[in-house]
């Protein structure tokens, strides 16, 4: 039987004269080897292969000469900046409402989570039907009130707007719940002290809630930007890039290059263009949370 030390743990095995195959480090490595193998096969290898395919300068010349690519860069920027910031700002405000300790708020919170819980596909298809210019509910209501129909998905601005609105509708509940959790971690004593000092709702928010949620808010913003930068589902299912390829984002354009046009190297070059931004977000995030 192995002797225990005073601290009650096993002593490190003696190294001298023992096979390297018996070292605990190596054994630990062997235990994790399957996971490392899977990680290497399905993460490291595809990334390296992707970078290899994307390393041809001709691919970048080709995609930057494509007018659709240039418009797509602008769309992606709009999508990430507007959709993420509007969504998180609304989530921050709504989290205040859902933080009230009334029983009906719990019911409302549960209902509020539904858009996030339903699968994206039926949600987007329903939204597309509602926006149909011939028989959609939105235009039906507009014409009921004597207003002109709007071809929502057939003009670039409203089509891109529809993508953003759906994105916000779908993911707002998730971030709201995160902020509710953040609010509940703020000690009640701080609000009591603020109340003694005569702070109202606005001052409470400005001087107590927001300073304490600021780090969480920034982390959520960075995380959401990383997720949204790679978002394919919402833009693809909502417009597929139409009308006239004016509503593509980088993820949908890369898909179009790769699978519609058989240009794998262009698709990977498209992703690689976004890589520095994604890596910057990840780097900032890691600095912030001190990983």
């Amino acid at each position, binding site marked *: 039987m192995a002797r225990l030390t005073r601290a009650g743990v096993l002593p490190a095995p003696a190294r001298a004269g023992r096979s390297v195959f018996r070292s605990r480090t190596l054994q630990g490595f062997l235990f994790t080897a399957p996971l490392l193998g899977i990680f290497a096969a399905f993460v490291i290898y595809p990334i390296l292969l992707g970078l290899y395919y994307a390393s041809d300068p001709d691919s970048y010349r080709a995609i930057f000469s494509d007018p659709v690519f240039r418009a797509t860069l602008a769309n992606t920027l709009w999508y990430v900046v507007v959709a993420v910031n509007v969504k998180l700002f609304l989530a921050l405000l709504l989290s205040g409402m859902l933080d009230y300790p009334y029983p009906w708020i719990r019911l409302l919170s549960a209902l509020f989570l539904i858009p996030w819980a339903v699968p994206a596909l039926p949600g987007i298809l329903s939204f597309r039907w509602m926006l149909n210019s011939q028989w959609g509910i939105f235009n039906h209501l507009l014409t009921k009130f004597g207003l002109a129909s709007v071809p929502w998905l057939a003009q670039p601005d409203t089509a891109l707007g529809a993508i953003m609105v759906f994105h916000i509708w779908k993911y707002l509940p998730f971030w709201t719940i995160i902020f509710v959790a953040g609010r509940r971690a703020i000690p009640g004593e701080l609000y009591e002290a603020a109340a003694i000092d005569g702070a109202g709702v606005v001052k409470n928010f400005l001087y107590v809630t927001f300073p304490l949620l600021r780090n969480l808010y920034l982390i959520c913003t960075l995380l959401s930007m990383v997720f949204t930068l790679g978002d394919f589902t919402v833009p693809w299912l909502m417009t597929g890039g139409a009308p006239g*390829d004016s509503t593509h984002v980088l993820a949908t354009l890369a898909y179009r290059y790769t699978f*519609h046009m058989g240009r794998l190297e262009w698709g990977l070059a498209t992703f690689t263009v976004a890589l520095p931004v994604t890596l910057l977000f990840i780097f900032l995030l890691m600095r912030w949370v001190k990983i």
Partner: protein
Amino acid sequence: MWRRLARRALWVPLALFLATLVFPAGAALAADKLVVWWNKGYYPEEDAAMQKIVKEFEAQHKVEVDLSFTAQEDLLKKITAALIARRVPDVAFCFFNDWQVVPKFGWDDKLADTSDVIAKLKPRYNAKMLEVAYVMNNKTKKRAYYGVPIEAQTMHIHYWRDLLKEAGLEDDPAKIPMKWDDYWSYWKKAQDALRRKDPAKYGKLYGIGMTESTRASDTLYNFEMALLSFNGELLDKDGKVVASQPKNREAIIKTLTWFGDLFTSGYVPPDATNWTDGDNNAGFHSRSIVMTPNPSQSIPAAQFFNKDDPQRDNYFNKMATIEWPNGPDGKKPRYLSAVKTIIIPKDSKSQKLAKDFILFVLEPPRFLEYIKAANGRWFPAFKDLYADPFWRTGHRGPRGEKDNHVPVATTIFLERDNKVFEHYKHPAISQVYDENIWGKAMARIAVEKWPADKAADEAIERMKAIFAQYK
């Protein structure tokens, strides 16, 4: 001792794990059978006919065939990924092979040369349809057959006869005006009359279901058909771009102006710039458009199998198929056909068996049964098959009605000036179609309000830039 054994046992799962990475079991098994990826049919009868053929082939050749059906959109991606990754099936048939796979991957030397199969079938072929697979290989610097064409589709116009009757217009196909302006005005008149007659019922009905979207391949047919009507050409016989020549540039501008005016006239659904290939079909079936151009017989074929209409009243009495109108210069229309093509990837380990399989599928009685199961949606590429009376008479209705659809397509294929799409001339045209640059030009005019000449010039420049990439 037990501890030592246990420690050694740690190596076993690791060794097994590495072994599975090094020797994938699937690769070893794949060589024992013929792997066939086939486009899922539009009707169950098509798939059943193919399954029957496969069973007969298995029995005759004593070999296992792994047949899988995939919907066309997904199958194209699957074939593209397989060819790039070089993990391929032995035979692949996708409705998009002709313009999205054969020219590009033939150029890249990733398809097997099927010239020997074509040589055996040559006496049976409609020669015009054969050239679609005769593409350039950039490695050998020679043209060869890199696919086996089997069936074709071309442009038709479908309309609701009963809606025309209700609008107080003549509904007989023989009496629809075929002059360019009169033809398109006819459907506008129908929209106006129906909306006037019953605003509640027809307030959102449109006269013309013209697809003008970058998402739909129908847009390519619509544009190129109209371009032929305006006497324009994009390529010369050697595959060089001639779109910028003054005569052709003018024709392109006229064509785009015509599409732009049509869209903004209020007679085309506003979502037509956002449609996919199925959306004009859906609009037609829901009777929210009076007519639609469609490059296959999918619309009447769907009505033929409409379970809500057991007497096939829609197919035989309420709708009809007619031709594209005469050009603005009064000349008869010139048609474009897309000829659907089977490929064998160059990396297939069973090329001989794959060729035997294709020849087996295309034997006359067998292939006739398969293609007829599509209910006239496709037209055979073989003379002996379209000699069958079905293509001239079509179906007979339950009350002895004549078929208004299949014989029209046969007339277009056999009696009109009909040429195949020109992607076989140069692989770059395949990318021009992939990018749908003419759909983009239509959107520039219809949505972004660009003048037609600016949109035409942008598209022509893009076309030239794409061609310049192929050296």
